[in-house]
């Protein structure tokens, strides 16, 4: 009998700490599969800053660095410039990438740092227990927007892929989701491409993954997937926002 | 032997360069030297000055609040620093820029129209070197030929015209009879 499904070698045997129904596990697996398929485990260096994925250094089977909140792209810049032959990726949440680390994100992108960023957007701060994120939707209730996010009071959410796509240094920006098996397969393809771009020295690649947080959304895992589909995808449309391999008309 | 020298004027008059030339020459002569510039926004067109200390013993403070020698290239620095020259000290003033004389009797004052000499001889921007030529003759701190070699050796071959200019400017200052 042949093995048709196994743990990727880029994942350790450590039991993950994520809540039931959380989609971090899926995305970790997709990243690990991509690393395996590209045969880059031995030269991969991952960077996980503060957020729910802060323990990612326990899960990925490559050299790992834990960074300060928001600073992963700067740390990745330092690593990549010191070790251009290594494959450097960051794994960041929405608060990390789009609030406290916006400057590091935008400037590593516009410099065209040859790194890969996996961006988990779940519209909420998970680790600290459900506070408003930069990507929290208008009307969405969080512990720090208990009456629903009001653009007048708390301001508007930020669409990172759209913004980053305007920068010359960005080789590839795509937003994907993991709410259905078909979308998971598309997400895998995008993550593979983001790593392959780095191997081919094409420059900055980011994959934004719309994800769920059943615990802090107060929903069951299945309800959370539906909520993502009904609320997040209309505000954060899926698609390719920048791909230097494609002409403008071919996008999305 | 220690010389505390203050060179002062406007930004753009080559004040810092003149100080560096003295410090570098001192270093090549085996002296202890320090060069400390004024810095910041005032560098850009405003006042500029630098302190140069030349000594045969280790230098403590690089500051020159009371100079043995003041080289003044404009009126504001003349007004500000002339009273601070040590008794028995020396003043060099560019009298084409400064239309007054020092009233102190306890210092030696030397005047040279360095800026006018420079522009009259088509040596724009080299009033500082004219002044250095005069300074060399009066003080005798450094040998003229060595100093000439020293300031021109730093100029890249691509700017060979500057070598001639500096040479001429230094000679004019050195030949000036006050």
């Amino acid at each position, binding site marked *: 009998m042949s093995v048709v499904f196994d743990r990727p070698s880029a994942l350790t045997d450590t039991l993950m700490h994520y809540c039931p129904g959380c989609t971090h596990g899926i995305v970790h697996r997709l990243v690990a599969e991509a690393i395996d398929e590209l045969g880059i*485990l*031995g*030269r*991969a*260096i991952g*960077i996980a800053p503060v957020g729910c994925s*802060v*323990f990612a*250094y326990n899960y990925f*089977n*490559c*050299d*790992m*660095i*834990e*960074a*300060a909140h928001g*600073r992963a792209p*700067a*740390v*990745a*810049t*330092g*690593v*990549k*410039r*010191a*070790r251009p*032959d*290594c*494959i450097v990726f960051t794994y960041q949440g929405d608060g990390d990438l789009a609030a406290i680390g916006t*400057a*590091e994100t*935008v*400037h590593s992108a516009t*410099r065209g740092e040859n790194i890969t960023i996996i961006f988990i957007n779940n519209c909420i701060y998970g680790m600290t227990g459900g506070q408003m994120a930069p990507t929290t939707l208008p009307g969405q209730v969080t512990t720090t927007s208990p009456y629903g996010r009001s653009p007048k009071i708390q301001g508007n959410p930020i669409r990172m892929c759209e913004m980053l796509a305007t920068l010359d240094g960005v080789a590839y920006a795509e937003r994907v989701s993991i709410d259905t098996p078909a979308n998971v397969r598309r997400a895998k393809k995008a993550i593979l491409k983001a790593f392959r771009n780095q191997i081919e020295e094409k420059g900055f690649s980011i994959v934004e993954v719309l994800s769920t947080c059943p615990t802090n959304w107060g929903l069951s895992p299945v309800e959370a997937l539906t909520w993502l589909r009904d609320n997040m995808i209309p505000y954060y449309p899926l698609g390719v926002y920048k791909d230097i391999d494609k002409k403008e008309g071919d996008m999305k | 032997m220690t010389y505390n020298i203050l060179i002062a004027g406007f930004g753009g008059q080559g004040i810092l360069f003149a100080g*560096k030339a003295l*410090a*570098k020459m001192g*270093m090549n002569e085996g002296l202890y*030297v*320090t*060069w*400390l*510039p004024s*810095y*910041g926004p005032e560098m850009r067109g405003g006042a500029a000055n630098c302190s140069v200390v030349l000594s045969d013993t*280790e*230098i*403590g*403070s*690089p*500051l020159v*609040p009371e100079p043995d020698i003041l080289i003044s290239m404009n009126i504001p620095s003349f007004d500000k620093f002339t009273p601070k020259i040590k008794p028995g000290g020396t003043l060099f003033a560019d009298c084409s820029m400064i239309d007054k004389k020092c009233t102190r009797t306890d210092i030696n004052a030397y005047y040279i129209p360095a800026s006018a000499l420079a522009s009259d001889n088509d040596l724009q921007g080299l009033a500082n070197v004219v002044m250095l030529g005069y300074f060399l003759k009066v003080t005798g701190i450094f040998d003229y030929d060595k100093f000439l070699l020293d300031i021109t050796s730093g100029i890249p071959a691509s700017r060979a015209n500057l070598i001639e200019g500096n040479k001429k400017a230094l000679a004019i200052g050195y030949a000036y009879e006050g």
Partner: protein
Amino acid sequence: MPKVLMKGNEAIAEAAINAGCLHYFGYPITPQTEISEYLAKRLPKVGGVLIQAESEIAAINMVLGASAAGVRAMTSSSSPGISLKSEGISYLVGCDLPAVIVNVQRGGPGLGGIQPSQADYYQATKAYGHGDMRLIVLAPSTVQEMATLTGEAFDLADIYRTPVIILADGAIGQMMEPVDFSERKPREIPPKDWACTGHGGTRKRNIINSLMLDPEALEKSVRERFERYKKIEETEVKYERFMTDDADIICVAFGIASRICKSAVTAAREKGIKAGLLRPITLWPFPKAAIAEAANTAKAFLSVELSMGQMVDDVKLACECRRPVEFFGRTGGVLPSPAEVTAKIEAIAAQL
């Protein structure tokens, strides 16, 4: 090797390259920008990298990344910029990463001024970041020392896996003096087998991390680090004594203030006052034992600083109340004149 006339800031930059530092990350700020300008010219010619970062915060984190990847890395700034780096400095400590951080101090607080200052002494020696931590702090007083201590800083950082601070000031940074780059002998550096370089399938993966949620584990790691600090205190203290053997009054000063004190001490001696100077070169570890020993013979101490008085606390602690410790300082970017310091020495002498 012939001496070259250089600015202190440039000497730091050249010495960093000589020490094998090919990765510099910084953000412009007066009065230290010559460091990045110099490196921007030189590094590309020697296969190095300079990135002008989007902020001081990004710059220190790029240093963290490069250091984690096993190469020598440096950043430099001046006081307000250094405050921004404090987060990254704490993370460097928590991750046990070597790095060299230069602070060419200017007057504060706030945006302050741009003239020389030593008012970041407390910050550098007590609290450059949050948490239980120490940093080696080196205080050059000549352009030559800007060079030698920069090389030394990289060695110390690698040997003890700690960030090392070069605490300079605007005057030493901007002034020119002759410097000889062959003066320092490099030390032996342990291999960086902890670095993230890609494990290549040949070793266990390396993890660089400062997160430890288990209090017992965190305490253990902090205690281990403090064992290293103890060794640094035992073996790496550096200071200079100038006419202290028979001195009644010993000035304690570092950096540019020590230069001014040397002139003042010489002037006081000419007036028949037995003055001397003890100059800490390492501000941490502080030369406590040297000051305690000097207190056996000296009658009084005078701490001279470009601040309202910060190091004076450490001088007092080192004296253990056995001798009076006076203070003289100017702040905000004002440099004390040797005459002012001499007058203070005379005033103390009159009371002995």
